[in-house]
């Protein structure tokens, strides 16, 4: 651990100014990932930490069309929200499938979006070759062992680090919008455009500029007729990140899928919106054959290493299962 300065921000503008003006400053919210990375792992070494937990960014409001969630709302608070339970049951399932109650009581929604990868190579400073930590240093994970937790979509030779959020999987499927405050005011960024694929620069993870502060997310509420579910597949029955997870929402009318929203977790370098699968599903009959075709379309070109070789097939099957549970099989 390196010594750092701790500052508590009085208002949003001051917080943004404090961090924007100092390249070595970071925001601190729930801290459930960040404190580990700072104090235990020595991966993050900010010189100044700006505590935003007293800012008025906590709370949930809803109207007919949108659920607005303050960035400092905790995971438990969001899971307990009645609108979430009623209109976004798969988001609730995803929230409660993640972490533990203790962590969910601390962890914030803004932090969940910006959580760092669990890649075992990224998190050990004793590993020198990590493109995400040190650009152009290589990727130890690709040749490493125990690769089950790595990504197969959006991944490549530079980086296979997974974005491990459960919550972001339904959020990305729902076209959630992220509200961001920067030095030049507020912006609204669709979650589907919020994350960057690793490409040549795995160190760049989002479109945020240094000092940008996530203030809220806006989740469009899906139509009441839609059925949704979150299916998380993992070895341990609880307290483990997904090997594969699927957030799916389907509207089926007279045996035909009229609306399909599909997000994948446990497989992507970013929370994965399965648009290829959605295209196959939309307008197609609600049959297992359709689901298989959708899964096939999404997993057409996975990037695997020996440890993740089983994941494309597991992802296909999990997609089919999740869709079948929602849409049935009208064959």
């Amino acid at each position: 651990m390196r010594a750092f300065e701790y500052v508590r921000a009085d208002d949003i503008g001051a917080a943004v100014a404090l961090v924007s003006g100092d390249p070595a400053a970071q925001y601190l919210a729930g801290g459930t990932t960040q404190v580990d990375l700072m104090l235990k792992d020595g991966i993050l070494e900010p010189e100044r930490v700006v505590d935003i937990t007293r800012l008025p960014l906590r709370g949930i409001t809803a109207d007919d069309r949108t659920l607005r969630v303050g960035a400092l709302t905790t995971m438990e608070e969001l899971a307990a929200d009645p609108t979430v339970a009623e209109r976004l049951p798969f988001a609730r399932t995803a929230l409660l499938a993640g972490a533990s109650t203790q962590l969910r009581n601390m962890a914030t929604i803004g932090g969940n979006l910006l959580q760092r990868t669990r890649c075992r190579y990224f998190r050990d400073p004793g590993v020198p070759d990590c493109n995400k930590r040190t650009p152009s240093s290589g990727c130890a994970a690709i040749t490493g062992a125990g690769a089950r937790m790595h990504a197969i979509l959006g991944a490549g030779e530079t980086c296979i680090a997974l974005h491990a959020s459960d919550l972001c999987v339904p959020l990305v499927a729902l076209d959630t919008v992220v509200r961001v405050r920067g030095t030049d005011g507020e912006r609204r960024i669709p979650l589907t455009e919020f994350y960057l694929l690793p490409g040549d620069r795995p160190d760049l993870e989002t479109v945020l500029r240094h000092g940008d502060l996530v203030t809220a997310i806006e989740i469009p509420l899906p139509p009441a007729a839609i059925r949704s579910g979150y299916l998380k597949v993992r070895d341990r029955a609880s307290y483990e990140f997904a090997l594969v997870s699927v957030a799916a929402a389907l509207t089926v009318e007279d045996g035909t899928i009229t609306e399909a929203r599909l997000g994948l977790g446990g497989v992507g370098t970013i929370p994965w919106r399965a648009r290829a699968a959605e295209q196959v599903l939309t307008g197609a009959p609600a049959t297992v054959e359709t689901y298989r075709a959708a899964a096939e379309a999404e997993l057409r070109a996975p990037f695997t290493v020996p440890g993740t070789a089983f994941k494309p097939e597991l992802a296909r099957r999990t997609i089919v299962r999740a869709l079948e549970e929602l849409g049935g099989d009208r064959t």
Partner: protein
Amino acid sequence: MTLTRPVVVGAGVDRVDGPLKVAGAAAYSSDITLPGMVHVALVRSTIAAGRITRLDTGAAEQLPGVLAVLSHHNAPRLAAGPTNNLGPTPPPPLQDDRIRHHGQYLAAVVAEKPYQAAAAARAVTVEYERTEPVLRIEDPAGELRTDPFGMDATRGDAAGALAAAEVVHEATYVTAENTNNPLGLFATVAQWSGGRLTVHDATQWTSNTCQTLAQMFEVPESAVRVYAKYVGGAFGSGLRVWPHVVLAVLAARTVGRPVKLVLSRPEMFTGIGHRPNTVQQLRIGAARDGGFVAIEHEALQTVAMDDENLEPVAASSASAYACPNVATRDRQRRLNIPCPGSMRAPGEAQANFALESAIDELSYLLDMDPLDLRLRNYAQVQPQFGLPWSSKALRECYQVGAERFGWSRRDRRIGAMRDGRWLVGYGMAGVSYLWWQVHCEARATIGSDGTGYVRSAATDIGTGTYTVMRQLSAELLGLELDQVRFDLGDSNLPWSPQAGGSGLTGALGNAVHAACRELIRTFLRTVVNDSASPLRGCTIDDVAVSGGRIHHRADGKLGESFVAILARHGLDELTADGVSDPPDPQEVGMAPAGAFAAKFVEVHVDPDLGLLRVPRIVSVVDGGRILNEKLARSQIIGATVGGVGQAILEETVTDPRTGRIANANLGDYLVAVNADIGEIDVTFVGEPDQLTPLGTKGVGEVGLPGTAAAVANAVYHATGKRIRSLPITIDDLLG
């Protein structure tokens, strides 16, 4: 005197240390704080093989609060530690520039505050000359040690019998490396004072830690005192004196102040042992009627550079079944890995998976029920010695287990049982646990207020030693539970063996038994010529004890209290010592028996997604005489959960290029959580063992082996997939 009052012993008495632990008042070694105490942080190797070419501590030494940085440049040469019944002491740290494994300690930073020590440890820079590490168990570049324990067994002609057998099953089984991961981080607090050393440590064996530190630091044992009043779990990792303990002691001597060293969770993966991975070949030959004609078991396991680890794997197969021709062979491959060590049921956890999976496979070749096949080959006498067992109720374990589980409801066809989408499988395994007992000493005192004080250097690693020994002492001295104190965890107390090998309760219980009997004899000697005593002239066989009194066996009214005897003779107290030693099997004409068990497991498998759940496990255990059924049951439950971990979750992953452990934290190394554990049913059967006065057999480990094999056998029954490699995970089961 006989144990005629089974009132206290056997009862499910609550843990006497429970309230302290729940209230956070039990001081583990990491809770010990001494005046002027400073802190140690460790620098570990980031390569697995080679040598240090440059180790620069200059920057670290300049940081605030730093008092000293120890490395191979300035650390004194230390004497080697002793060799005991578990093997030699691990090599002392900081003695040379050689790198033997990733995570090896290269420097120790001493600073005023723990965070200052941690910061300075990161400021130590190390340069290496790398050599190619040997990391894979199959790698012929690693030295192969044959018969490392001198326990390879031969009976008859296994090879010949296999060649002639009507049915042969042959297969290779693989078990993963597992890491003990007790919840309590290991910590050492060390203080030197005028040539005397005091240590608070997370050890399972204070007597050994005392002897080892005395030898390494070349001071008399009488100048070293080691405390381990409470240990936050260990599962075998506290059996040896690991390098961090030595470093804490060295640091304290260097800076002349008390020091504390608390391992981090990642350091717990490289510094205190782990269950070595294995590759095992099993060959079983049988007649058509199911009778075994030959068992060959060859096991290869890993071992570290410059170290040894007593881990007989194949050896345990020699005495599990009646079989005329047996050959077992253990081998070790020396690798650039952190030192393996004991982890709950060392050797047997791996061996049982292979043997009991192989027997299950054979049962299908023979078209026999796997339970019937085991009964068909039941070892009525100990097959290696040819002697009757000192106790064995394995048959009852099978029978009671089958009944409690509902084994008769098992449809023998593969994949025939279902619960909705889930395939249902039933599997079982038998366990014949090896016997282990060693010398132990205890001391018992009764004071003028009539209360008892019994003690030994033993440790309670969370198993309940404080409780059962207090129960036993109370019974043997005729006192109530709250009239007796049992103390342990202090090397100044009478010598005790390790809390390990499921041997402590037996060894210590019999030493306590001997000490308490000797104390009663001492009271009787005190009054032997005392005309005022109704006990005058009595021998121990004439009397019984109860209610704080010694009285004639035949006439409870004819006797007097301990208090009265002490008062009349002007004594503050009387004290007596007791020892126990393992009997010689030939002398007693019996083969000493360890515990036996049967495991019955139900699994559910989702064949599309590869999901595996274990909703139900029935364990039936012959543990001889059970001193406290509640605590014994807890041991079996905990060990069963550990078995589920071994079966479906736990795997320490070593990076194949660097030798770095890639999942050295509790987020990535998966131990079973509540949601993984369904119904666990535990039953004890059997009789007191005939070998010792108390009749106990250890139950600390027997609950673990058998679980993995029964799970794998149930998985086969459910799916037709035979998984011969642990842990069994989703990718193994994707249909």
